[in-house]
């Protein structure tokens, strides 16, 4: 784990170069946030990509993953893969849920529809008037 048999071949100079790279990348991330790449998701992807590059640099050099036995890298990467799966499946779920819109809300643009006392307003409501997830797809929200 930690007791490396080999001497640290990375010299102090490499560490400085890496630090410089990290700082520059931080600048780039901040800068990129001010540029509009067309959609918020592209901005997000760029930011996460840069963060990933930075994380890789830290892991490879500062954490010496480059020189460690491969088992450490396997543990590290597999934890990331499981994390990815963990994110992926709920995303699939939320992204592909049936958008059930009841008749009471289909015409919600017309105020008259709101008056129909019989429409069971979805429980949410709450003090903030937070829209329920499904009603979030209805135009009025």
């Amino acid at each position, binding site marked *: 784990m930690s007791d490396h048999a080999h001497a640290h071949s990375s010299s102090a100079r490499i560490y400085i170069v890496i630090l410089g790279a990290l700082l520059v990348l931080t600048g780039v991330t901040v800068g990129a946030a001010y540029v509009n790449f067309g959609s918020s998701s592209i901005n997000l992807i760029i930011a996460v990509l840069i963060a990933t590059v930075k994380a890789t640099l830290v892991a490879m050099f500062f954490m010496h993953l480059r020189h460690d036995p491969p088992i450490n890298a396997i543990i590290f990467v597999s934890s990331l893969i499981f994390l990815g799966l963990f994110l992926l499946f709920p995303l699939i779920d939320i992204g592909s849920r049936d958008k059930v819109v009841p008749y009471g809300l289909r015409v919600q643009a017309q105020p008259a529809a709101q008056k129909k006392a019989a429409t069971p307003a*979805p*429980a*949410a409501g709450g003090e903030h008037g937070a829209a*329920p997830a*499904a*009603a979030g797809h209805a135009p009025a929200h």
Partner: protein
Amino acid sequence: MNFLREWMMPIQASEHAAKVDNLYLFIFLLTSAFFVLICYLTVLFAWKYKRKKEGVLTINFQHNLALELVWSIVPLILVIGIFFWGFHDYAAASVAPNDALEIHVTGKKWNWTFEYPDGTRSIRSLHVPVNKPVRLIMTSEDVLHAFFIPSLRIKQDVVPGRYVDLNFTATVPGKHQVFCAEYCGRDHSGMLGDLFVDSPAKYAEWLEKGDEELYKMKPADLGKMVWEMKGCNSCHTLDGTKGEGPSFKGIFGKTEKLRDGSTAVVDENYIRESILNPQAKVVAGYEPVMPTFQGLLREIEIKGVIAFIKELK
């Protein structure tokens, strides 16, 4: 096979139920075969190769590729088959026909409320016409519930803050049991309901004037039924213990102190008002939490409740 199905499953009240049962029976027979095989081999080996002498050496039998492939691949093919079968029926059942009758279902601790396209509402009893596709649009007012009709083999969690739907076409007229299948607290097991599958004419008549049995009952009995069926019993007891609301025992004719300091005599008009506009006169010591039953109770039912309370000395 029919006797097996009838032994294990509730009655089939829709075509979907028959499909589910077919797959259920298929898996049952398949797994029974495998189970018998496992038991047979286990018992056979345990008996046949029972230790007779200590310290004997046994054969070295560690691999048999053909055998291992067979018991990996055969189950694999079978389960993939089962997956597609199950998925196919599931997908078919989750598509709503365009002409479906849309009924709103609201789950709330511990009652089901149904609302029909014409505005009629009912508690705990869902009426649908036979052979007509029905789409239930469901939501919950508090926690998760699940709407479960065993005889239709359908179930769906009812999620607060969202609408979920459930589709069925009931083919067998009569009364079917409705359960809440997602744990929801104290009276989870009392959160029941009835599905009445009616002929179209009877359904129309029901929408018009409600269940005809109502008119044949003694008013007090009707009131007791309303007390049970419409959920009054979850707040108002009959034995004098304090619930969310005052107990009905001996309440008729009493003079109650109200929250605003005034008093009121519990008479026919007070009861009637308390049912239709419960917030108007709340007895001191209770929260104004009772929902209105305006539109939920027919006139005859209100009369029944009054008669029922009168009888509770």
